[in-house]
């Protein structure tokens, strides 16, 4: 299958790719969940990933974040191969994510959730921590106030001590974003961030995603089913179908792509 990649890469020639997939393939037994997918994401982009259910979008996210490893092909981050790294090593490099089926630390408070995610930016060990020796107390203070800032950013600071599992669905998604931001990533992967939100909340989320891109200099990859949101928000969109990349480009081009219409968007 031809991969319509040329047009968009020309328009972004002046930028360097942050993420690059090269012939990425992942098989699960006989099923090819992701099939020879190549694309690159430029710095500062909001990059959408759409496609029907089971198209391999989440599998692709899992490949990027090291939760699974590719059967073939490579994943590069700022030119370095990351396909063989484990999730925590990839997180340390600056790639953070949220999960489609929300994976907060459900029994812990919102604050603790965000504090935990600052792990890689702190150093204190068992003994400095237990005995309260430097750098532990200062780090602890910083971790806590930083967690509050991030909760404030997503509008949850007034419920910082509540258990994560007590939050309504939409707030849990916001909390997951705050937790991911605590890693101070340069790339943020959002897996269906608007799922379960009403149209009003979706619009707010859209604005919020733009805001954090600006504020934290992020490159954002986003899986989303809600087509208007994706079209309005993303700089570029990749469309997956049965594990294959069938289109990539700016929203207008993707929207009018015949293959995309047949596979996903449907004809009116």
């Amino acid at each position, binding site marked *: 299958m031809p991969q319509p990649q040329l047009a968009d890469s020309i328009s972004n020639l002046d930028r360097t790719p942050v993420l690059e997939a090269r012939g990425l393939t992942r098989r699960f037994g006989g099923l090819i969940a992701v099939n020879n997918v190549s694309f690159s994401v430029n710095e500062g982009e909001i990059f959408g990933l759409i496609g029907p259910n089971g198209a391999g979008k989440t599998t692709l996210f899992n490949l990027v974040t090291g939760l699974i490893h590719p059967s073939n092909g490579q994943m590069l981050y700022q030119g370095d191969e990351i396909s063989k790294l484990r999730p925590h090593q990839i997180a340390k490099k600056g790639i953070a994510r949220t999960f489609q089926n929300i994976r907060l630390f459900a*029994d812990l408070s919102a604050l603790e959730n965000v504090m935990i995610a600052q792990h890689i930016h702190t150093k204190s060990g068992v003994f400095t921590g237990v*005995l309260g020796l430097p750098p532990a107390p200062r780090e602890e203070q910083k971790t806590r106030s930083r967690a509050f800032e991030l909760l404030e950013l997503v509008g949850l600071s007034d419920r910082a001590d509540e258990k994560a599992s007590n939050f309504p669905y939409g707030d849990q998604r916001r909390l997951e974003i705050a937790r991911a931001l605590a890693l101070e990533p340069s790339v943020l992967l959002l897996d269906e961030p608007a799922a379960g939100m009403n149209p009003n909340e979706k619009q707010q989320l859209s604005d919020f995603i733009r805001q954090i891109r600006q504020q934290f200099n992020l490159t954002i990859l986003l899986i989303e089913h809600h087509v208007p949101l994706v079209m309005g928000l993303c700089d570029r969109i990749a469309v997956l179908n049965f594990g294959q990349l069938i289109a990539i480009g700016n929203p207008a081009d993707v929207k009018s792509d015949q293959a995309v219409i047949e596979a996903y968007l449907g004809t009116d």
Partner: protein
Amino acid sequence: MNDFVSTYGFLFVSMILGAMLGLSLYLPLMAGQLSLASPGFYALGGYVAAILSTKVFQVKEPFPIALLLLEMLIAGIICGLLGVIVGVPALRLRGIYLAIATIAFVEILRVLALNLDVTGGAVGIFGIPQPFQSPIEYLWIVLPLLLISMAFVYRLEKIRVGRAFIAIREDELAADSMGINPTYYKALAFTLGAILAGVVGAISAHFLNTWNARQGTFDASIIYLTFVLIGGSRTFLGPVLGGMVFTALPEILRAIADTPGLPVWLAQFLRDGRLIIFGLLIVIGTRFFPQGLVTPQLLKRRSRSQANR
């Protein structure tokens, strides 16, 4: 009063040792790892102390406290090293498979202890020298040790490393994605538990005066597990109280069994059915109190955020 102390001195010290063994199981559990290896490290720590005090140090009684502390240190170090060696591969297993692997570890140590010369074979090691005149005086060592371990775990729950443990317990995959190395922190939690069990073993060898292969057994694994599961697996106070109560329980049951007028079979059961009762408690307790009797909700954690606004 003196009567009371001399009758129950042994029990008090045992209860404190039980509390610490509960904590040694609680530490890996903080990182979500159900390890039953504590009796193995406890037995090993005991052998370290027994061998050092009977064969290496060769001093007259009363056995010097400094040497006792040195033995505890050595036992802790040896158990810590073995903890890393055993923990790193074993912790690749999850849930019940890890539990089974750690039971196997305990069994291997037991069989080794039964068959090696240095451990005295089936007979074990006798006449371990006493640093104190009476059992109750062991409180001078075990009480501070318990307070230190409690303070340690209390602090641990509030710091970066403890948060990493708890994150892994809550969701290992999410913790991994948040930059926490699960292998490292699981092995660390396991090793901290091993060190504590080893130190407790070292003091126990002196306390019990004799040490043999009956010290680290599958039975003991189940008993320590009861401490944590029934006491509470979500706060360090759970295993501490669980360890104390369940160490005292056989004595209490025995006292009840001695009440006149009980049917013979019931008295017999109360005296000898300790493991059956513990087993039943695990089943009933996990059904109705999945987090144990002492839970964080029960303790009503103080709001943690106030200080930082």
